[in-house]
């Protein structure tokens, strides 16, 4: 193990990967780590709010704790070298241990496999051709012979050949003994493939934190492979607002936002193809869905206006682009469709969700929501869709929670309280090391029911679960190291999150002249939504009090929607219509939303009727 030496220049070694780094002046340990590619979680984006970036100095002089860390850790922990990476500016050479929890990646990337059948009607047509042999008697060009062969199969199908195809045409045709598979889109041959090979499409769910890829056979409609990767833009900020402010007025940052995403998708797509012995050049169509900010970054559009009221997008729609235009390393003339946005904070991912749940065919009165830092909510009622985006904050993703972490091994995912005992269930049954979003709901619901939290969200000091720290009560979940607690501030953050979601639901219902009891169904989409207990969501008032059976957890509906749009031209048109016809409400600055939001912060009264 290399030893740490202080020789003028500060050098750091990150365990366990044994990565060396020289910090720049005034750079936080978190930034240094990210710069050299050491994975350190940062749920709050380095703002010193959460605990996701804790590290430990194991060798070298430990810098004095920041004022915030001084308050954050116990004296013993500080003495043992525990710090938060975002709060620490290294001054001396040191060896730093990055604990498992701090580097854990979300294991719950939900990438589908949830195959739903749709009759494939892709935008591309594929025809297998035998080209006439060139000779002295036949002076037609290779391209012309290609077009003629295609039109012999189906008259009028083809008029042009894309330049990228022309550039490989003579060599490819001769290599394949004049037998080729031509991929045609809008009368243009956009790719040539060997005969009897898959024509592939790529469906991409471009999330702020994670990117999911689905490799699909465009003919059969079956999913050939899938994978999830982290959105590399995370190093520029955990949430969209942080990234907007980072890129604001800086074209070079805007450009790199685009490049890191494209590079990550390229790498993942190539690995996915390699795994299944497929050629990335056979990917001839691609559909991407993301929120409006991800959409803008992907297309290199300025995001400055998206960050300030009234949150104006550059565009909601774009015509289909080519892979080459955006730098995707697939068939160069492959189309890239970016799903249409609905508004500044309701993006193409929500259009995809609406398609995924087939909102166009919905006869019932339904609330569909995808819970995240911003929770997009749609009300579908009598053929009309009303939607909004509610600022629920990161608490439900484990951010802004004292012991919060992503949904990874060792994260407490559900909690139940009976009598005097707290039962914890962790992901993969590992020893608990933190709390992820689904457990946050359970903790609030279970401790509320047990009387350890009152309806105002105040922790009851007299409760046997409560312990005192710095004069504030907190709930203890686990005594063993690491000690896990749920603080009063955590309860407040959860209240803000659930209040925002419920107020959003209520605002939509009010706009449509409906009441919660008139809802037939609540559809919870998204990875997070898969793992919550609806009972807990109802107990704390995040969702209206409907029968449990009317709450449906559908998983990655947006992913399904992207796949549908990839496989079927009519579906793609349906999604465009859904996006265009949805009625968007801006909650920001809306007084009635604010009032409703504040009212919804309390937990639903269990006994007495004092709360209105």
């Amino acid at each position: 193990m290399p030893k740490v030496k202080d020789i003028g220049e500060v050098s750091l070694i990150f365990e366990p990967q044994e990565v060396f780094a020289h910090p720049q002046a005034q750079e936080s340990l978190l930034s240094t780590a990210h710069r050299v590619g050491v994975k350190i979680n940062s749920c709050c984006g380095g703002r010193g709010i959460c605990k996701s970036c804790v590290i430990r100095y194991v060798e070298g002089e430990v810098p004095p704790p920041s004022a915030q860390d001084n308050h954050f850790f116990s004296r013993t922990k500080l003495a043992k070298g525990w710090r938060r990476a975002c709060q620490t500016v290294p001054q001396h050479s040191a060896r730093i241990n990055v604990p498992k929890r701090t580097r854990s990646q979300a294991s719950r990337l939900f990438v589908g496999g949830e195959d739903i059948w749709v009759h494939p009607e892709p935008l591309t047509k594929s025809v297998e051709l035998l080209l006439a042999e060139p000779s002295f008697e036949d002076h037609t060009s290779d391209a012309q012979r290609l077009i003629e062969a295609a039109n012999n199969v189906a008259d009028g199908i083809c008029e042009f050949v894309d330049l990228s195809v022309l550039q490989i045409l003579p060599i490819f045709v001769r290599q394949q003994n004049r037998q080729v598979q031509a991929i045609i889109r809008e009368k243009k041959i956009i790719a040539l493939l060997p005969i009897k090979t898959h024509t592939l499409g790529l469906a991409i769910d471009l999330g702020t934190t994670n990117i999911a890829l689905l490799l699909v056979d465009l003919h059969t409609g079956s999913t050939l492979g899938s994978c999830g990767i982290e959105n590399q833009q995370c190093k520029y900020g955990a949430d969209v607002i942080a990234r907007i402010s980072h890129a604001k007025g800086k074209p070079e940052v805007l450009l790199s936002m685009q490049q890191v995403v494209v590079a990550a998708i390229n790498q993942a797509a190539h690995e996915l193809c390699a795994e299944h012995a497929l050629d990335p050049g056979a990917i001839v169509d691609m559909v991407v869905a993301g929120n409006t900010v991800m959409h803008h970054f992907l297309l290199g559009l300025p995001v400055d206006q998206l960050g300030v009221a009234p949150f104006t997008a550059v565009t909601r729609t774009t015509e289909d682009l080519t892979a080459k235009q955006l730098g995707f390393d697939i068939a160069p003339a492959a189309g890239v469709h970016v799903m249409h946005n609905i508004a500044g904070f309701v993006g193409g991912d929500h259009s995809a969700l609406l398609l995924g749940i087939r909102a166009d065919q919905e006869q019932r009165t339904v609330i569909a929501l995808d819970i995240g830092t911003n929770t997009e909510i749609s009300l579908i009622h009598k053929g009309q869709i009303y939607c909004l985006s509610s600022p629920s904050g990161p608490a439900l993703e484990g951010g802004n929670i004292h012991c919060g972490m992503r949904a990874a091994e060792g994260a407490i995912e559900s909690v139940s309280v009976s009598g005097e005992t707290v039962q914890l269930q962790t992901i993969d049954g590992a020893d608990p090391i933190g709390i992820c979003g689904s457990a946050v709901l359970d903790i609030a619901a279970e401790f509320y029911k047990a009387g350890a939290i009152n309806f105002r969200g105040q922790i009851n000091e007299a409760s046997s679960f409560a312990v005192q720290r710095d004069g504030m009560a907190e709930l203890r979940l686990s005594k063993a190291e690491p000690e896990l607690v749920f603080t009063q501030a955590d309860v407040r953050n959860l209240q803000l999150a659930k209040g925002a979601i419920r107020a959003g639901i209520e605002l939509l219902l009010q706009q449509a002249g409906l009441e919660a009891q008139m809802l037939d169904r609540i559809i919870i989409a998204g990875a997070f939504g898969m793992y919550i207990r609806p009972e807990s969501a109802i107990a704390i008032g995040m969702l209206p009090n409907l029968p449990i059976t009317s709450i449906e957890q559908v998983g990655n509906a947006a992913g399904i929607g992207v796949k549908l749009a990839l496989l079927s031209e009519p579906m793609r048109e349906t999604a465009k219509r859904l996006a265009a016809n949805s009625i968007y409400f801006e909650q920001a600055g809306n007084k009635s939303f604010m009032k409703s939001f504040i009212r919804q912060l309390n937990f639903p009264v269990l006994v007495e009727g004092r709360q209105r």
Partner: protein
Amino acid sequence: MSDQKSQLIDHIVEMREDEALSLTHKMLDAGYDPLQLLAHCRDAMDQVGKRFETQEYFLPELMMAGDMLSQISDIAKPLINKGETGEQASTHGTVVIGTVNGDLHDIGKDIVTFMLEINGFKVIDLGIDVPVSDFVEAIQEHNPQVVGLSGFLTLAFDAMKQTVDAIEAADLRGQLKIMIGGGQVDESIKVHTGADAFGKNAMDAVNLCRDWVGVAA
């Protein structure tokens, strides 16, 4: 009498709106001094504020208390004889507050407003998404000792800076102090915007204002 006083305070502090309002009517109908009654309300608000600080109460209680106070004021104020200026006499100073241009968040600002008011400051709340020029005009009109700029979005920090610059350009900076708050403000944001101080929460704001106008806590 003093029994009614403590009952009224109790109703407000315990969020019993209907009881508080009907007792207000009863007291005023029986000839209770409306200025006295409003003073009791302020005592009650003070207690609500303390409960908020100790985390016993959260935003809903602040909102309900604020609602009750404004309803009671509406009932009591018409009964106050002209010439009696019990209220203004008690203000420590004036604060102009608002959420800066481009930002629509108002919860934090509303809490600060509430806490300043119950601590004896007159607050001119300009609302949200406030153009720079509105701040300047309000300062010229109300002559405040303190200006509070609120913003939650990191992007609001530039708007804060512009507002501070405009106040300076209008030659108003010398007569007042500027505090900023909201979301992720810290020392570096304070420096960036050119404000005099920043606050992490509503009590910070109250303490800053007290310091600046020279009121003991």
